[in-house]
Every structure is written in C-alpha cells, then in structure tokens.
C-alpha cells in the first residue's frame, strides 16, 4: 500500500529564487525503510519537510495516506500520522524534563491525562530511557537526546517516521544507538521509516535508497545496486562506503566475493572462511 505519494512536485522558497525541487516523483510503501541521500544542498532535507506538510509544493501534489498536503485542513491529521525527528537534538526538545518533552505532542492534541501518562511511559520504555524520566535534557548525551525526540515522536503512534539527518550531529556510539532503535521500530512495529542522511553507512541498512542532486532524484533502488554504481555516486558527489570499496578492491585482485554481501560481519566471516581454505 502506498503511504506517501509525490507527483511532479516543484518547489522554490520565494518566487524569485531558483527551484529547490524539480519534478519529484516518489512513492513510498507502507512498512518500507527508505533512505534519501545526497550532497549538501541537494534538496533532501527540503524534501523531508513535504512529508508532514511543513512545506507544500508550488506545483504537483503530495499525498500522505491519500490526504493532500496542499489542503490546510488536512495538516493536523497528517502531522499526527507523520512524526519527525530533526538534526540538532538541542533545538527540538521543548520540555524541561524527558517525560514532559515526550508528552508535548500528546498535550497538543488534547489526549486525556490518564491515557497520556500511560503512552508517555510506553514510549519511554520502548526507547530504553527508563530511569531518565525526570532528567533535564542538557544532562543527557547526544544519543539519549535523540532518543527522547524519538520517544516524543512515537508517543503519537505515527504511521510514518521521518528522520531529517537525525544522526549527523552524534558521535559514532550515539549514531549506532539511534539507528538500532529506529531499526527496531521498522521491524517490530512495521513503521514506515524515511531517513534523510549523507552517511551512506546508514543508507546501506535501508530497504531502498533515493539519491538526490540539485533538487532532482537521480537514483532510486536497492542500496546494494546504487552503491556499486560509481558513475551515479560520482555525479551525486557521494563517497562509496568503505565496505564497498574493500569488496571491489578484493574482487579486482581475484578474491571470490560477491557484492551482495554487505554487512561488515558477513564480510569478515567470508574472509575468514577463505583464509581457512587457503
């Protein structure tokens, strides 16, 4: 089932500006994990803001579970279906404590107190933040802060989760932490996940990858297929992830490894096996 549909979307910030998005056509299926990659200024973050009606197209249309974002009356409903987590953890936490922040979205849509307490606790548990309920945001690590933002997002029971470079300001541990929880949401709860990122290591984990350049989509397909397409990566000014480079260098030297094996673990295992055979 298509949950997000973008048809011939064009966008510019001001009438005198040049186009930021050009003829975007994109369909996202329910339960899918799609990563949108691209260089700085490729329009990927702008695209993300169309998914919950923060921006609306000047031409074309965006449908979120059948609701057009161009109709202002749909905005409240769309924003309850699509939760967003942004880049800077410090700039999106509103509440003075973890539980207050998780409750913020629920307060906004007028959820009764008893239900709110229960849902806040559930989300906090899901994101592994137990024991930090009363902590102040500035005492948390980057990874924890982003998990608070995630907890706030999922407390609304959204269908779609959009991560707008949510891991780009985190250290490697924090990044891994956040991605692990997102992966869990996608697998266990069948939540549609859209990650905007310029970290291709993250994109490798997704079901589908969309490559953007200068406001247009130039690639759309399996990560393993797109990441071996050197021309495409060069055009998008993206660097092939280390594993892909390594596999390629190895195949060049005649080591029998197929590109399909993407995870680091699998690669290490195959290499060990090969060594034993030698």
């Amino acid at each position, binding site marked *: 089932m298509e949950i997000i549909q973008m048809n011939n979307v064009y966008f510019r910030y001001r009438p005198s500006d040049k186009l930021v998005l050009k003829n975007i056509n994109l369909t996202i299926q329910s339960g899918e994990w799609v990563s949108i990659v691209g260089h700085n200024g490729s329009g990927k973050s702008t695209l993300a*803001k169309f998914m919950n009606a923060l921006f609306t197209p000047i031409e074309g249309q965006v449908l979120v579970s059948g609701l057009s974002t161009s109709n202002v009356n749909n905005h*409240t409903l769309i924003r309850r279906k699509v939760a967003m987590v*942004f880049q800077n953890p410090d700039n999106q*936490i*509103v509440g*003075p404590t973890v539980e207050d922040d998780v409750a913020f979205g629920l307060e906004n849509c*007028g959820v009764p107190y008893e239900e709110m307490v229960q849902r806040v606790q559930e989300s906090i548990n899901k994101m592994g933040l137990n024991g930090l309920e009363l902590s102040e945001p500035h005492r948390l690590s980057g990874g924890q802060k982003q998990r608070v933002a995630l907890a706030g997002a999922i407390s609304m029971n959204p269908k779609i989760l959009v991560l707008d470079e949510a891991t780009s300001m985190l250290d490697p541990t924090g990044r891994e932490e956040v991605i692990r929880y997102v992966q869990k949401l996608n697998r266990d709860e069948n939540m549609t996940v859209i990650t905007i990122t310029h970290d291709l290591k993250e994109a490798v984990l997704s079901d589908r990858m969309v490559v953007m350049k200068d406001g247009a989509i130039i690639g759309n397909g399996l990560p393993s297929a797109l990441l071996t397409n050197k021309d495409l990566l060069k055009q998008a000014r993206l660097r092939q992830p280390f594993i892909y480079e390594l596999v390629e260098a190895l195949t060049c030297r005649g080591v029998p490894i197929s590109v399909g094996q993407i995870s680091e673990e699998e690669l290490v295992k195959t290499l060990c096996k090969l060594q034993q055979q030698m």
Partner: protein
Amino acid sequence: MLDHVIIGQYVPGKSFVHRMDPRAKLICLMLFVVFLFISRHPFVLIGGLILTTTAFYYAKIPLRFYIKGMRFIVIIILFTFILHLFLTREGPAIFSTPIFTIYLGGVTQGGFMATRLLVLFIMASLLTLTTTPVALTDGLETLMKPLKKLGVPTHELAFMMSIALRFIPTLLDETAKIIKAQRARGANFTQGSLWNRLKAVIPIFIPLFVQSFKRAEDLATAMEARGYEGGEGRTKFRLLTWLKKDTYAVIVFALYALIVLIVKIGGGN
C-alpha cells in the same frame, strides 16, 4: 567560568514547604509582600517576623543557601539603614560630630526598614529555593488564568517562560564554547582596561545571538511538526495538586493580612 551562575536557586528537598502547591506558595507570598508594607505598626513587623521564622523552619533549607544569594541584598539593606540613620531627625540625639548628628529615631527607623527588607527577602528566596522553576511557571499560569478573559495571553506567556527556562543551560553551554573558541583565536577577556574588556564581550554575544535565532527557528519547526497549535484544546501532563495543608497555609497568611488591616484601620498609621 560560568559555573558560578546560579539559575533558579532551587534546592531539592522534601520539606513541608517543598511539597506545597506552587499556587499556594505564590498566593502566600503575594499576601505577605503587600501587607507587610501596608502599615508601619511594629505589630505588623513582628507578625511578619513570626511568619518568616515559621516558614524558614518548615522549609528546612540550610542557612548558607540564603547567605549565598544575600551578598547583593545586604548592600541594599545596609544602604537603606544608613540613609535612614542620617536623614531621620526624630527623638533625642545620641551621637553628634560637627558634620552630622545621629538621632534615636534614625536608629529605630533604619532598623525597622532593614528588618522589613530582610524579612521580605528571606520570604521571597524561600519560594525560589523550595520550588522548581517549572512548578513556578505552572503555578503562575493557573493563577493568571482569570486574566485570560481580559485578553492577556496567559498560556503563551507561561509557555515562553518555560521554554526560556529550558534553554538557559543550553545557552550557557554555548556561551562557554564560544568563549573557548574566541580564546583559541587569541581573544583576551581578563586583561586590559575596562573598556577593552567590555569590547571583548562583543565577539561572544554576536555569535550567541545568531545561534539563538537559528535555534528559535528550528524549535518553531519542531513544535509545528509535533502539532503545536497554541493553547486551545491542549491538555496538561503536569498536574498541580492542591492539598489541605495548602489551604491551611493560605488561611494563615490571610489571617495575617486581616490582622494588618485591623491594625492599620484601628491604629491609623
């Protein structure tokens, strides 16, 4: 460098005063402040002293926390005392030099005013020492609710205050970072004339302001994405609970107010 900046001097605790409803505390303080200054009768001051000591006892906050915040206030109190000492010319002279004479009236007047200020200050700091800024904001919001009918944007005001409180630590961190960054570029904040030191602050504040605007914009986007549409139809996660003891506390302060009024009308000063 910024460690000594105390934001909301809240001292965690479980005392009677800590557990009081912030609304009750605010009402009590307002009653106290207004009626302490309404009359000059010694009874009023003695009553105030008794209330303060009782509250001080029940708050169970070590004296050093009051003293810590006191330095600036002490100057004001001393200044008031000295002003009264020299300017009041009542009663017999008790000490005289060719330049000035001190009268007994000056000593009592000065002492009276100084005690009044001291009591007021202790009461006010009791509120901030025993109440988290968040609870205080909640209390203020509910107390201001009647003003909503007059068109005062009470929800927005309280919300602004709570966001400001939330961002104080973030901005302090940021300031510390900027100071380090500017130092690394050779800026000097601790030497040179006063004028130069003041000028050195400019490269701290400009990046801080620019960043704050950026933060504000990001926050607004995040709030919109999370469905914030103003105060209408919102429910509250934090509930204030008014207990019997809150009523009792307010009654005590209301009685004080009543006594002051009676003294004022009866005594005529």
